[in-house]
Each structure stands twice: as C-alpha cells, then as structure tokens.
C-alpha cells in the first residue's frame, strides 16, 4: 500500500453533511460501524441551512384529520404520479417519528396553544402540515443534527472535497478527493459510501442554490456506472427575488403564501385563479372569497390557488410576465403587506423581512415583493431502492436531493426536509448493514488513484488559457436560456451542442497560483460534474416528449399517459450516455384506492 497520500479506512463514508448526510452518519455510527462524515464546506453550512418554510409530517397537531395516507396522496398527486409509490409511502409514514426525534435532540419548533408542534400551510398539502421555526426551519434542523453528531463523536472531515469514487470488482471500495485548505489529496478506503450531496442548481444562472450545488454526488455515481432517473425533472421555485440583479434567484419562502400572501400582476389582479388546471380544479377555490376563507376554515372551503404545487405556480408567473403583465423588473408581485399585520409578518417571516430590508430596500410589511421563478431543486438523481436507498452499484447508497423517486415530477414544499430525515436514516441503517455483511480487506487500485490524481492536477499544467469562471458563466446562460421552465426540442438540441463545446473548452482550462485554497482550481474541478449533470438533464428532457411537473415542453404541451408510466433512465457506459424508458413500480391496489375515493 502506497503511503503517497493521506489515507483513512472506514466501514461507511458519508459524503455531504446537510440533513441527509448528518442523519445518515448518526444512524450508521449508532449501529457500531466506523463512520466518517465528509463535507466540502464547514460543518453546519450545507444547503439545508437555507431551507425556510418547514418539515412536512402528518403529525395531526393542527388538523387531527391528517394522517400518512393524506400526506402520501398529496405527495403523489403533487409529483404527477411519477413518484416511486413505496418511497412516498415510507416518507409519509415515517416523517412524524423523525420530527419528534429531532425535538428529542434539542430542536425547538414553534408551538400550538396546547404546547405541541405547530404546523403551517404549504402548497399542495391538504392540511396545515409543516413543522417549522418561523422561516428558518433548515437552520434549526441542521444545527440540531450537527450538535447531535458532534456529541456522538463522529469523525468529521470539513472542507474536504471528494472527486471520484473507487470500485473493486464492481463494488464500492473508496473515495478520493482533496483538502480545500492545503490542496493535498486524501484517500478513504471504505466498504460503503452514502451520498448526501444535494442538487445541481448551480448549472443555471438564476438559482436559489449555494455554490455547493454542482451535481457532485450525481456525477460521482454516474462515473462508477450507477443509474440515474428523472434528470429532466427540475423544479423552478415560483418565488425567487428578482431585484436588484445581485440577489436575483435568492429564495422567498412559500411560507409567505402559506401565511396569507397572494400573487398579483401589474394590474393588481390575483391571477392564479386563471391558472387552475383540471387536475386540481376539484380541490381548489375558484373565488377570492373562498380562497381567503380557506386559511381559517379548511373543512368548508377549498385551497387558495396561490398554493397550487410549485410547478403550476412557476408556469403561471412565467406566462403573466410573457403576456406583459409583469412587475417593473420582470417578475410579479407577492403581497402580504396588505393582508396581514406588520407584527404577524415579522413574527412569522423574520428572515424574509430582514432579507428584503437589507438586500432590496423593501419593507415587506408595507410593500409587495417582486418575485419570479428560480432554479431550486432537482427531483431526478441517483436511482435507489425505495426501502434501502441502495443505488445500482453495490455498496453505494444515496439519500436526499441527490437521490430520485420520492418526488416524481414535482416536489411539494416541506417534503424535502422530511425526505432528508426519513431516507438519511434509512441510508445509514442499510449502509451499516451492508458494511457489516462484507468482512475482509478493502482493495483499492493505486494505479487508478494515480490516474485520478493526474487528472485533478491537469488544470495547473494546462496552457489552453480557458478561464473556469467563464466556462461556468456560459454554462449557466445556456441552461437558463435553453433548458428552463418551458422547453422545445430545437432549444434542447442547441443546448447539447453548446455543452459539447464547453466540454472541449474544459479540456483547455488553466488555473493560476498554487494548490492551497484556490477557488479557481476548485471550480475547474467542479465543472466536470456541472457539465455532466447539465448534459443528463438535457438528454432526459429531449427523451420525455410530454409535459409533466417540472418538465414542460412547448412542442408537447399535454401530459401523455404512456410517459406517465415510465422513468427516463440514463447511465454512462464507456463515456457514452444511454437512455431507456423503464416502467414505474406498480402501486398496490389498497393504495390505488386512495386516489379513487376523491376524484
């Protein structure tokens, strides 16, 4: 064994320390396997920290009528039935337990009058269901998990960026990456790897995602031959900030609408009433009076169309702006100022108040906000076993945004934080079981490691003169303009051509300076995964010739029942992508019945 590189040996290595990674590490470690948690930022800074509105869980604290079956049904319908039914079932069943467990680890959610966890309304959820802390629920969740993990003594490797996974005879054997601080390489030998690396939003120009969302986990999995599904399913959150330019894309929580805010166009009209599709007509209010009454009385009124699922609202805003009824800076208006008291707004939405005041000089208790769609989430990702989170590569597991299936064609707000907890725990559990079952030495091919090291250092030797920041900016423009909310075949094919050019340019990338904390070098390496996920998303979008959820085709504007029965599966063999359409798992009859009762 070469000692050229710093080397560590573990049973389970968790990559990513957001909600899913932390929860997975806590579980694996508790089961007695040697566990490492690796994150590319400092601990506690992962994207989970930015989640605002809440955690969806059918606790039934506010509406006793709520239960897992209602949550399951909402999740499936919100996902336009493209979801993996078993994941949606497990998620709805286990979310309440996971939330209560978080409370036992110290989380302090907002309370009901009788001292239980308060729940808030959100898009697509039949009842007030989101456990929350004002509009900073993600912070509460990540800090609670972080402190729990620290007190359990889990080994944490901060600012350590994993670049490639290593296999031995098709099985997981290791992970190789670099320390950001020193630029030195580090090798982890391990029986199992859990990906909790999040999403891919940094491939788009206007995004709510942080710098970390470069598709690392999806690409780590792709590069060792794992299957991906649903990569065409990208969620554009309807409400991102649009002004000033420097903050464009920053998230404005759905909680604004959950707490009474409403969308208006430049004429002052509450336009969402014009965008109620047949699919949701029966359960959506058709008058302002009913919509407003729904906040107080959910039994006798139907839900406001302001809280239709995100795909519906994002398309509606897009259409209003295109029709010339947008706000001054190309969004629409989100008004809570005229509908709720200043005290209520500051109590319920303190971060939003602060964010608009500081960054846009807007007082949301007095004026409407300008908002528009922003790239927020990828429903697609690594194909996993619904129960175990195992990918198609033995020893490789995935949970959270990097995994696919739970959310189908569109994710409901609040279902992400619960996803992280439910499937993070399951990933930790089954990865630990896998590691325990595989005794014996782990073999890593050092020749392979050497090749990877040379590839990662290539940008320092390159004299092609390509700037990584320019390649990234061009990719973001390409995806924004050609693989956005509304897509057509011509534009998607144009995007493929542009991505091909960017891949050639990446071969000529050169970086300045040395290896110590060098962001230019880091970005040059991230571009490998950014370009890979961009290409996968575009290929999936060409293949799915219909409109469904987060994928809208101008040239195929209707949902096609045949496409509703299949996932687009995409995988890489010898450097070439292959795509297949594979049938969704069949839902058992007793669950199907849940959809027939309420038509």
């Amino acid at each position: 064994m070469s000692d050229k590189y710093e080397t560590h040996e573990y049973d389970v290595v968790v990559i990513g320390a957001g909600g899913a990674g932390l929860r997975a590490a806590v579980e694996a470690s508790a089961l007695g396997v040697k566990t490492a948690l690796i994150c590319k930022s400092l601990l506690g800074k992962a994207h989970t920290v930015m989640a605002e509105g809440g955690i969806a869980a059918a606790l039934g604290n506010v509406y006793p009528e709520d239960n897992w079956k209602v949550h399951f049904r909402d999740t499936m319908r919100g996902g336009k039935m493209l979801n993996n039914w078993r994941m949606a079932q497990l998620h709805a069943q286990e979310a309440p337990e996971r939330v209560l467990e978080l409370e036992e680890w110290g989380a302090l959610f907002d309370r009901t009058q009788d001292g239980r966890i308060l729940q808030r309304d959100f898009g697509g959820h039949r009842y007030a269901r989101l456990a929350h802390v004002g509009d900073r629920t993600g912070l509460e969740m990540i800090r609670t998990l972080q402190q729990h993990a620290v007190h359990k003594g889990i080994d944490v490797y901060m600012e350590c960026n994993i670049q490639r996974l290593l296999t031995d005879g098709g099985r997981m054997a290791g992970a190789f990456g670099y320390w950001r601080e020193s630029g030195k390489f580090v090798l982890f030998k391990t029986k199992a790897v859990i990906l909790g690396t999040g999403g891919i939003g940094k491939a788009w120009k206007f995004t709510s995602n942080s710098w970390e969302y470069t598709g690392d986990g999806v690409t780590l999995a792709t590069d060792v031959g794992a299957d991906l599904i649903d990569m065409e399913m990208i969620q554009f959150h309807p409400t991102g900030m649009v002004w000033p330019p420097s903050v464009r894309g920053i998230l404005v929580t759905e909680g604004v609408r959950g707490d009474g805010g409403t969308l208006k166009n430049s004429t002052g009209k509450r336009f969402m009433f014009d965008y109620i599709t047949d699919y949701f007509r029966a359960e959506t209010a058709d008058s302002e009076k009913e919509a407003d009454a729904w906040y107080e009385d959910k039994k006798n009124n139907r839900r406001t169309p302001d809280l239709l699922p995100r795909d519906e609202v994002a398309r509606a805003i897009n259409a209003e702006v295109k029709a010339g009824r947008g706000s001054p800076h190309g969004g629409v208006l989100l008004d809570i100022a005229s509908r709720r008291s200043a005290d209520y707004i500051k109590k319920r939405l303190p971060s939003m108040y602060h964010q608009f005041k500081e960054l846009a000089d807007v007082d949301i208790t007095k004026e409407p906000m300008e908002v528009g769609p922003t790239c927020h989430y990828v429903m697609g990702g690594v194909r996993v076993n619904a129960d175990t989170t195992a990918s198609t590569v033995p020893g490789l597991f995935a949970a959270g945004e990097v995994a696919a299936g739970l959310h189908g064609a569109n994710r409901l707000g609040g279902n992400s934080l619960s996803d992280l907890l439910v499937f993070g725990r399951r990933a930790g559990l089954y990865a630990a079981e896998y590691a325990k079952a595989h005794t014996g030495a782990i073999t890593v091919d050092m020749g392979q490691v050497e090749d990877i090291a040379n590839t990662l250092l290539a940008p320092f030797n390159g004299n092609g003169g390509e700037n990584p920041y320019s390649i990234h900016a061009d990719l973001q423009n390409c995806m924004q303009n050609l693989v956005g909310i509304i897509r057509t075949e011509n534009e998607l094919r144009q995007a493929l051509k542009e991505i091909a050019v960017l891949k050639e340019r990446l071969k000529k990338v050169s970086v300045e300076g040395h290896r110590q904390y060098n962001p230019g070098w880091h970005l040059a390496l991230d571009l490998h995964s950014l370009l890979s996920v961009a290409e996968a998303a575009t290929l999936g979008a060409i293949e799915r010739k219909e409109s469904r959820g987060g994928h809208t085709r101008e040239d195929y504007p209707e949902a096609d029942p045949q496409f509703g029965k299949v996932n687009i599966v995409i995988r890489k063999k010898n450097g070439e992508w292959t795509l297949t359409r594979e049938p969704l798992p069949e839902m058992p009859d007793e669950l199907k019945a849940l959809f027939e009762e309420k038509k």
Partner: protein
Amino acid sequence: MADTEVTMRVWRGDASGGEFKEYRVPAQEGMVVLDVVHTIQATQAPDLAVRWNCKAGKCGSCSAEVNGKPRLMCMTRMNTFVPGETITLAPVKTFPLIRDLVTDVSFNYEKAKTIPPLKLKAKEADGTRRMFQEDVDRVQEFHKCIECFLCQNVCHVIRDHEENKEWFAGPRLFVRLASLEMHPLDANDRKEVIKEQTGLGFCNITKCCTEVCPENIHITDNAIIPLKERVVDEYYDPVLWLLRKLRGEQ
C-alpha cells in the same frame, strides 16, 4: 450612483505574510461586498481565496473585516459606502490566516465538542413533550445563531490574546450554553463547567459581541449575564454559603 466603478483593497497572502492589493470592478445596482469579490475572482484574481455559501445571510460563512468592521460580506451593500470610496477588505483577525480572506476557525468547532449536551427530562404522563411558546421564545433567540463567529472575532479576551483561547470559550459558546441551560426539556447541570472551564468570568460585558451579531441576538443581556447569575447563585450566594458552612458541607 454616479460612479461606474468600485475600488477595493483586498488582503492577499498567507500565514507567512502578504499585502493589500487594489482591484477595480464595474459597479452594479444592489451589489454587496461579496459580489465585488466574486467579480474580482472571475476577471482578475481567479485564485483569490474566500469562504461563502448561501449569499443570503443564512449560513454565516463569509465573515470578514470591511473597512475594519466585522461584517458578513453577503449582507454588506456597496451603497452603504461613500461613492468612490476605496473599500478595504481583510480577513477576520482573531483566527489564524489560511489564505487571503480565509481563516482557520477550528477553534470554535473544538470548543463546541466540550459543551455538555442536552439531557432529556422524563416525558409527560400522556407520553408527549409539551412546551409552550413563551417557554421556547428565549431559547429560539439563541437558535438563530448562524455561527459566523463574528462575536468570537471581536471578543477582546481572545482577539489580541492567542494564549487565552485555551481556557476561554467565547460568546458563541456562551450562547450555546445558555440555549441548553434554558431549554425546557433539559435536565443537565453545566454550572461547574461554565464556572471552571469556559472562562465566563473573564467577560466584562463590553457588549462588543452583541453589536456585531448579524442576527441581532442579545448575546450579553440574554445569554452571558443570565449565565453569570446562575454561577453566582450557585457558588457565591452568601446565604447559601453560610448554610453550607453550618451544615459542614464544602
């Protein structure tokens, strides 16, 4: 803004030394300091080291000293400066420099490991854990902390005294201790740890930490002073002291 350009002096260097370098970039409406840094990276200094994540004031990664004032770069608008003024951007001072604007903040993570964790009280008779909003309000204030460590950076006990770090936890950890001590479900006793191992007594409540907190947590009034009172009540109450003497206790 009449000026179409902003000028920024940015610290470039590592533990062995360095200097301020001046950069000029085009101004854009609504720009924050972090936008200027990103523009410099993209066009002039691709290896300029900076730590950032959310760019929305939620993660606490991009702490720096802007014109000598500890701030989050992502929440500092350029229009808060005099137009044409040269802005000076330096790394936070209290932590060892790694490179450019990035410092080694591991001190905070090491201290966090030493805090005695939550120890749960028994459940209610009905198997639930009831807490009322008025009981959690004051702890929720502490939970707003985004761990930007600006409070640690300005604390004079450690800012100019590296040697004090060994036995002083700092305001961030005092907030953490207060959040546990006041947690409605907690049954742990940390008073001895607070008195003997965190250096709380060396805080002379100058409120520098409170002033720089981007989350407006009342660190001194709501966390540090109540902790000091708990320690005083436990160890320095003259009545209790006399009672203990009479009973022959320590």
